[in-house]
């Protein structure tokens, strides 16, 4: 590359250092022997052991995972339906309102979303707990899912569905046998996005969680407010590790797949 200069290399090095150093430091210090998180006192895994003993954290983790699984699955179903409506249903009365309600939660400050849902739950007398968090997370995550899925649907060759109908499928069969398998990667990434959003969310969960159900971010937040703690470092390291392994393997898999596709296409073009 002619224009790839020292300037570019420096910018990238500094940029990525800025993005990654804080997390690397966090990971390193999770293995620190000392309670004082800023002073290095030798390697130890004792904070991990202590974390495993901490009932409150483990319970919160379990609640969080439950909420994330339920809400992301529900959000994927609803979000895919919404995407289908946005891209395919054509005109219907209230379409503008519908697309507005899909896009508004994406830019709505979380404090407002949380506040409004809490006021609704109180208004209808619904006890706050796992159910209310699931409802709240499903609502904002489905909007993200529908954006991801609809961007795939827009580029989807509609004649594939018409071909399925032409060959004797009912509309539902055409969706199940043709559309869904083809848009599956987008639906899966929508699910993953919804899952991560739910795992991460602090603000909306704080509003909609009750005393019976506390999620991990709420737990972490209240611990962190008091200052840095090695146990939180250990917990963060575990979460970072899971995400890193997940994202890297996902991108390797998709890279392999696209390489294979390229090779196949070249072979096909040669005859």
């Amino acid at each position, binding site marked *: 590359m002619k224009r790839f200069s020292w300037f*570019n290399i420096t*910018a990238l090095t500094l940029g990525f250092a800025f*993005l990654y150093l804080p997390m690397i430091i966090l990971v390193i210090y999770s293995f620190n022997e000392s309670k004082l998180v800023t002073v290095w006192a030798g390697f130890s895994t004792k904070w991990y052991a202590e974390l495993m003993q901490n009932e409150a954290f483990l319970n919160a983790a379990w609640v969080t995972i439950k909420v994330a699984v339920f809400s992301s699955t529900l959000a994927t179903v609803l979000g895919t*339906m919404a995407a289908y409506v946005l891209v395919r249903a054509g005109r219907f009365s209230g379409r503008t309102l519908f697309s507005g309600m899909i896009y508004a939660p994406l830019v709505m400050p979380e404090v407002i979303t949380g*506040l409004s849902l809490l006021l609704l739950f109180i208004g209808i007398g619904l006890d706050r707990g796992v159910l209310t968090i699931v409802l709240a997370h499903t609502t904002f995550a489905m909007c993200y899912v529908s954006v991801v899925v609809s961007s795939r649907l827009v580029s989807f060759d509609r004649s594939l569905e018409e071909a399925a109908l032409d060959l004797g499928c009912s509309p539902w069969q055409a969706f199940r046998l043709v559309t869904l398998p083809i848009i599956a990667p987008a639906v899966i990434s929508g699910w993953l996005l919804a899952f991560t959003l739910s795992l991460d969310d602090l603000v909306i969960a704080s509003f909609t969680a009750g005393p019976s159900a506390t999620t991990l*971010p709420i737990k972490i*937040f209240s611990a962190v407010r008091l200052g840095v703690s090695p146990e939180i470092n250990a917990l963060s390291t575990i979460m970072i590790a899971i*995400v890193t392994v997940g994202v890297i393997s996902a991108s390797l898999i998709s890279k392999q797949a696209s390489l294979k596709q390229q090779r196949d296409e070249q072979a096909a073009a040669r005859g």
Partner: protein
Amino acid sequence: MRRAALIAVPYFWLLALFLVPFLIVMKISLSDGALAIPPYTPQLDIAEGWNGLKTFLSELDFENFVFLTTDDLYWKAYLSSFKIALISTSLALLIGYPIAYSMARAAPEWRPTLLMLIILPFWTSFLIRVYAWMGILANEGLLNQFLLWTGIISEPLTILNTNTAVYIGIVYTYLPFMILPIYSALEKMDDSLLEAAEDLGCSRTSAFWLVTIPLSKTGIIAGCFLVFIPTLGEFVIPSLLGGSQTLMIGKVLWEEFFNNRDWPVASAVAIILLLILIIPIILFQRNEQKQREMEG
């Protein structure tokens, strides 16, 4: 009708869990919170029909909004949120543009990896990414230890619990939002445009200002709004990295609700925040639309 059912399910879900709650917030913002717990007066008595609605409406007032204007805490909070969002957006642009530019200039086989490295932090918990800075910015934290060790300073700097820490936190967490749209605008740019500019007598620097910057304009605008809009309502960063003097409207709303338990005022704060956000959101949508039109 299958089509009707397909539309109805997500439609009613969003009506019930997005629009109705939002209307409740509007209603409560106009109500009197005599007691800091529900029910709020007035209440809509459905049985009374039209008259009920009239009395209901006549009892709504803008008292809470008037209250917001009299207490300068709120004014200051809105202004300071705006200022913090503006400064951090500018900082993110200054830091993000060179990174996006260098990514777009990198060898094509490197680009997917660089892109993945930018996106990876997205998937990591927001809370953890903010938390990571607490240990670095503290008085006895790593940054101060490093600066003392190099001899640049002799006294530890107070960074944590100041606005500086908030800027660092916002730029750090929202940087990918700035980089991605700029990168995608720059990546599409044809290299021969720069060669043509140089061929026509531009220096490299002037080619950058006259060709590269204008062509990445939509990316810059999109990136700025993507940082600015969520920052305005940010809660986590000011409450973990900011100090007691850091005023941001998200934090004020939270405290009004959880600490003072004044729900009508919290609702009024939320409504005003939304009104403020509408302008940048519309501008952002316009920019996106323009970009789509340009791409045909």
